[in-house]
């Protein structure tokens, strides 16, 4: 059995990339809201990190959906997913969440950048000012729902896989939580990386805030990963077989231990702790840590997707 091609493989890497991008979008939006409300308040639009998050979130979610559509066997029929719904289907409900999420995402971005938007439109399109004023009346509701929707989107990427009863490793209640937490940390990493690339200072208070949240997030992720596999081993039967197939010797074992546990989790955790204790934040440290986090999450999505399909019930 080859690591990337085997009989029971149905969904291949484009799905993992889609799951990654949806998670990045949800996480970036989540952290943009946190940054605005706990750190920056009305000046949020001036921050490179918030700007980066507000670019990454829509680009990532749309690119992810694009990949998903292209990956269908009938890409031109994708509109049928938007017309016909099945309340029992996780994917169908995910489509609904994705649609509503994007609406609230754009409304929140519009509100956050209200001042520059209003300034630019004042003489050109005065009608836009009425629209932003209307949105501003519902700012609290939009923000609250956006947080809920971004968390729902992050968890959905896990539920999508845990709804597959034929694969014992994927049919796992910890999976949605694991994907939610790793999705949030990938969103934070994307905001940091984009922020420092867009001339955000690596020692800004935004970076301090995100790093402070990221340390417990990585610790929770490690606990969830442990619980995920411990639960499978204790379930026994094919679940146990699946665990050893995934974590044992071979290509995916290396990806897990070196790529995910080493580079993706231990690396960023050590760097974050180091930066917190020395309060030295250089451009290369922040960007490097963010890249490691992103790499770890991409690898985790591929690892779970492929090894999850290697063992059947």
């Amino acid at each position, binding site marked *: 059995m080859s690591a990337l091609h085997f009989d*029971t493989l*149905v*969904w291949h890497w484009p799905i993992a990339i889609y799951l990654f991008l949806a998670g990045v979008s949800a996480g970036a939006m989540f952290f943009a809201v946190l940054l605005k409300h706990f750190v920056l308040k009305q000046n949020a639009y001036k921050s490179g990190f918030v700007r980066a998050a507000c670019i990454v979130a829509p680009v990532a979610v749309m690119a992810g959906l694009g990949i*998903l559509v292209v990956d*269908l*066997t*009938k890409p031109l*029929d*994708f509109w*049928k*997913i938007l*017309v*016909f*719904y*099945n*309340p*029992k*289907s*996780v*994917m*169908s409900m995910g*489509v609904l969440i994705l649609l509503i999420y994007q609406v609230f995402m754009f409304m929140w971005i519009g509100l956050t950048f209200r001042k520059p938007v209003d300034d630019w439109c004042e003489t050109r399109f005065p009608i836009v000012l009425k629209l932003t004023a209307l949105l501003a009346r*519902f*700012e*609290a*509701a939009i*923000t*609250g*729902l956006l947080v*809920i929707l971004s968390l729902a989107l992050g968890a959905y990427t896990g539920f999508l896989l845990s*709804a*597959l*009863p*034929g*694969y014992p490793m994927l049919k796992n209640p910890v999976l949605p939580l694991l994907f939610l937490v790793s999705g949030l940390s990938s969103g934070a990493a994307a905001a940091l990386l984009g922020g420092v690339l867009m001339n955000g200072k690596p020692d800004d208070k935004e970076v301090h805030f995100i790093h402070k949240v990221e340390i417990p997030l990585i610790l929770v992720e490690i606990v969830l990963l442990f619980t995920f596999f411990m639960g499978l081993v204790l379930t026994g039967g094919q679940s146990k077989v699946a665990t050893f197939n995934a974590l044992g010797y071979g290509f995916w074992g290396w990806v897990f231990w070196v790529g995910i546990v080493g580079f993706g989790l231990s690396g960023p955790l050590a760097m974050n702790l180091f930066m917190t204790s020395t309060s030295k934040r250089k451009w290369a440290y922040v960007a490097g840590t963010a890249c490691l986090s992103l790499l770890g999450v991409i690898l985790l999505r591929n690892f779970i997707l492929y090894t999850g*399909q290697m063992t*059947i*019930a």
Partner: protein
Amino acid sequence: MENSKRRFLKGTCALLAGATGATLLTTVNAAESAKAEAEIKYAMVHDESKCIGCRACEVACREVNEVPEGVSRIEILQTGPFGEYPNQFYHFSRKSCQHCEDAPCVNVCPTGAAFIDKETGIVSVDAWKCVGCQYCIAACPYQVRFINPVTHAADKCDFCRETNLAQGKQPACVAACPTKALVFGNLKDSTSEIVQVLRANPTQRAKVALGTRPKLFRILAKSGEVVL
């Protein structure tokens, strides 16, 4: 600020109430439709003690349902040989749709292209509605679904619902079987052959632990080897 908080809470509560109401409504509808149960529930028995592995069923299915080369709705899996020469034998088992009562493929299908026909209990595919996300293929614990290379839609055995059954005939595989190893019929009709066979023989169904309640029954052939 206080006002906006209140508005947010109101909005959230309204949303939750709406979502709960919608869910309840669908549940009630589902319960009502379950009350008016259909009079037909088709199932199949594969008597592995009679099967000789001639694969006439595979050929007949391909012909009747116009299944393209490279994919198949039914496969006969062969294991063995068992026993000592000259008394050796093979085992043959049928790999095809199990027509689950609680079908994972139907549950996960985002468009409803995978559905259970209310009148016959047959798990079917609406090729037009299918967009080819392959969620059903991944969800099926029996690995019997595939993408039809001609229609690009998910495909699988439907007990010849659109072909032989529509013409009042037995499914192609059943009609083709030379040893009468396949029995097809209505579980709700206590006089039908399948009910008699199920009453007279101990049968097994695959992966019942998953809660799928499949409707493909097998009568096991004599044991071939000791497996722990």
